[in-house]
């Protein structure tokens, strides 16, 4: 009996190790024969969260197009910076990749991180999400111009919320407020998560929340909330009737692109293989369907274009953060 129990305990420990996942041994040599084992895709956000689910969307087709499964590991914390640090420090053999959002360029400048812009090279853009500004349906303003007029008449009374300092939505929301010219006359009230912010808006504790479209689609359909504007170059499928800020005359066009990165020193041959594999994955019908269903609008860019996008974003974010006084 006692032996049986000991075995049970060992089994428990073993299960613990197994489910802990993580640490894959890096033995493979980088030859053209890539991949010979599962490729690990690191997500710097909590398991089950939006970013993690977005990364999981990539895994079903991986075996078909990459030849080996894509193993998704979450290393959450510090706005994605812990996961990014892990990938930057990993062996550049193509077996450890990073799934990152706009928070990657943001953390480069807002946090004191140990990695640099050039530690990463883009492989593929997977999706592109536009942030929106949502208020309660009974709010006395219906668009950007009315909001600006209202805040002028009631200085210091308008409040906006975002899901945390240094988050993508914080920076993109601050950009909206800055482009509307009201950032200095309103209050910023960070919450932890869009859900809490939405509850605070519905309860009338704060006036507005900046979030991604899926968070508000049902609220809008039910007549509880309305959208004042979309930060995007074009209108979005979720809210085809809501004009963009650009249409309304304010140059808030930033969106959050998400995609796959590799450590910068990864061999060219490996990068090429990954580039081709992710092109097929992201352009597959099933990926597009899943992405659209879950509010993660697919957008593909190949390694060269995505890398250029990343470089441009970095420069633009740095400039923006300085303008906004966030760094």
């Amino acid at each position, binding site marked *: 009996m006692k032996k049986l129990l000991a075995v049970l305990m060992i089994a428990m420990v073993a*299960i*613990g190790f197994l489910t802990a996942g993580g640490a894959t041994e890096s033995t493979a040599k980088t030859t053209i024969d890539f991949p010979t084992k599962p490729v690990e895709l690191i997500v710097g956000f909590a398991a*089950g969260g939006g970013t993690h689910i977005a990364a999981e969307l990539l895994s079903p087709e991986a075996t078909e197009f990459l030849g080996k499964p894509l193993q998704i590991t979450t290393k*959450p914390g510090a*706005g994605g910076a*812990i996961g990014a640090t892990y990938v930057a420090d990993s062996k550049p053999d193509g077996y450890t990749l990073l799934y990152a959002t706009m928070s990657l360029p943001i953390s480069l400048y807002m946090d004191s991180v140990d990695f640099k812009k050039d530690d990463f090279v883009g492989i593929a853009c997977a999706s592109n999400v536009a942030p929106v500004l949502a208020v309660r349906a009974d709010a006395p303003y219906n668009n950007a111009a009315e909001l600006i007029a209202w805040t002028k008449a009631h200085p210091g009374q308008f409040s906006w919320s975002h899901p945390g300092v*240094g988050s993508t939505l914080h920076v993109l929301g601050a950009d909206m407020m800055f482009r509307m010219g009201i950032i200095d006359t309103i209050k910023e009230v960070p919450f932890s998560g869009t859900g809490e912010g939405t509850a605070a808006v519905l*309860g009338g504790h704060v006036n507005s929340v900046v979030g991604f479209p899926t968070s508000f689609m*049902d609220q809008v359909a039910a007549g509880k909330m309305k959208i004042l504007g979309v930060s995007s170059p074009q209108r979005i499928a979720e809210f085809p009737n809501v004009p963009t800020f650009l249409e309304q005359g304010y140059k808030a066009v930033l969106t959050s692109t998400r995609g796959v990165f590799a450590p910068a020193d990864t061999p060219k041959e490996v990068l090429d293989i990954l580039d081709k594999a992710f092109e097929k994955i992201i352009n597959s019908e099933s990926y597009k369907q899943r992405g659209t269903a879950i509010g993660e609008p697919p957008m593909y860019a190949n390694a060269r274009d995505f890398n250029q996008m990343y470089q441009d974003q970095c420069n633009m974010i740095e400039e923006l953060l300085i303008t906004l006084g966030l760094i």
Partner: protein
Amino acid sequence: MGILLNSFTNFLSFQVISALFIGVAFGILGGALPGISPSMTIALLLPISLYLPADVAIAMMMGSYQGSMFGGSISAILINTPGTASAAATTLDGYQMALKGQSGKALHMALYASVTGGMVGVIILLVMAKPLSMVTLKFGPPEYFGLMVLSLSLIAGISGKSFTRGLISACLGLLMATVGMDPIYGTKRFTFGNINLGDGVQTLSIFIGVFALAEILSQLTKGKEELTRKEETLSLEQNTLTFKEYFGNLWTIIKSGVIGALIGVLPGIGGSTACFIAYAEAQRNSDHPEKFGTGIIEGIAAPEAANNAVAGGALVPTLTFGIPGDVVTAILVGALIAHGIKPGPLLFTDDIGSVYTIYIAMFFAVVALLVVGKLGVPLFAKIINLRKSTLLPMIFIICVVGTYSTRTNLFDAASMLFFGALGFILRKNKFPIPPFVIAFVIGAQLESNLKRSLILSDGSMSIFFTRPISAILILVALTMAVLMLVRNYKDQKKEEAKSTE
């Protein structure tokens, strides 16, 4: 009614019921393993659930939600290691009972309290989802702050013999809660430039450190004999839960269930706070408050009822607004959306069938928990019969792996070691651990909501007293603190009188 019956009959299929049991068993296992939190358990099931029909998937996830809430108590009771954050309060009396050889009784109490609490949660969800959803909206930053002040005042009750030492412990806990990024301004505090501390100290590292590792350390100081000693086995009678004991605690269980469900309704507070509040309330209301922490069943009944009831409460804002009540429901929302069910204001009008399916799944999850738990408890309870010299190293490994796996980050295991040492030092010097842990759990919400309120009021403290709910909460907190201080003072007088006699 027709739709309810329809959902009900759909539910009674072999597939759904077996998914429910698999979910419960998986949940108990995940809950019992430190580091596999309830949310991670469900996240692990998420990819599988996407391939299943919606009702099967819902049954499986509800099962694992309820299962994991109970599962946490198993490791809390047997090895003083809270398997989930919500089970932290259960360690206080659960482990003491296990030390007395009453692990079977403790586990049964945990199971029945979980099941009853889970039922309370389901009933509250069924009957009061709509009115309760208004509570979610009524609570803005000042109200959250008031609630946190109230929770903090409960610490006075569980400080043990010395109020001063309790306060010192609590202050240390609050100090630990300030580590990491400032929730409002983003300033980094006490991170020493280490990015791993950016989000503060991980809750599980603290819990496992101060409870489990500190316990291992103090066992080690007891010498070789203690380590090789065989646990005495009590007669079956002393180790089984009697009907009288269960029904004697029924009121505590129901009250704790209601506390749990109400806290679950408020997004962002979470199970561990709910359990500590339920524990402190049970102690405050008890005829023998001094016995709490020494291994009594009330101390298990209260937190275990609360954490399963949180599930029902957390579903209220999830289903009515699409706003997740806790981390688990946040993942649940993702899973439901993937199945074409959109939690939110339209769900009750457009898709009431799905709402009923979720209710029914929750109900049967609680029933399944009773069955699986009843079968499993005798097996788990035997772990305690292992020799300490075998058991302790295993617990240590579980502690390290568990803290590592929450974020797959070795730093969290290292900080667990640090808090183990800290907990050991605190215990050796008779500083009570519960105030430290509760203050840490409450600290973040206390601070962020204080700051949010003050931003909204332009720095004026009056916001806490002009809003009725927060004013009442703060007044109750003050009254309770004063009452407990008075009681504490009287007790001390009595003791002094005794000792001079």
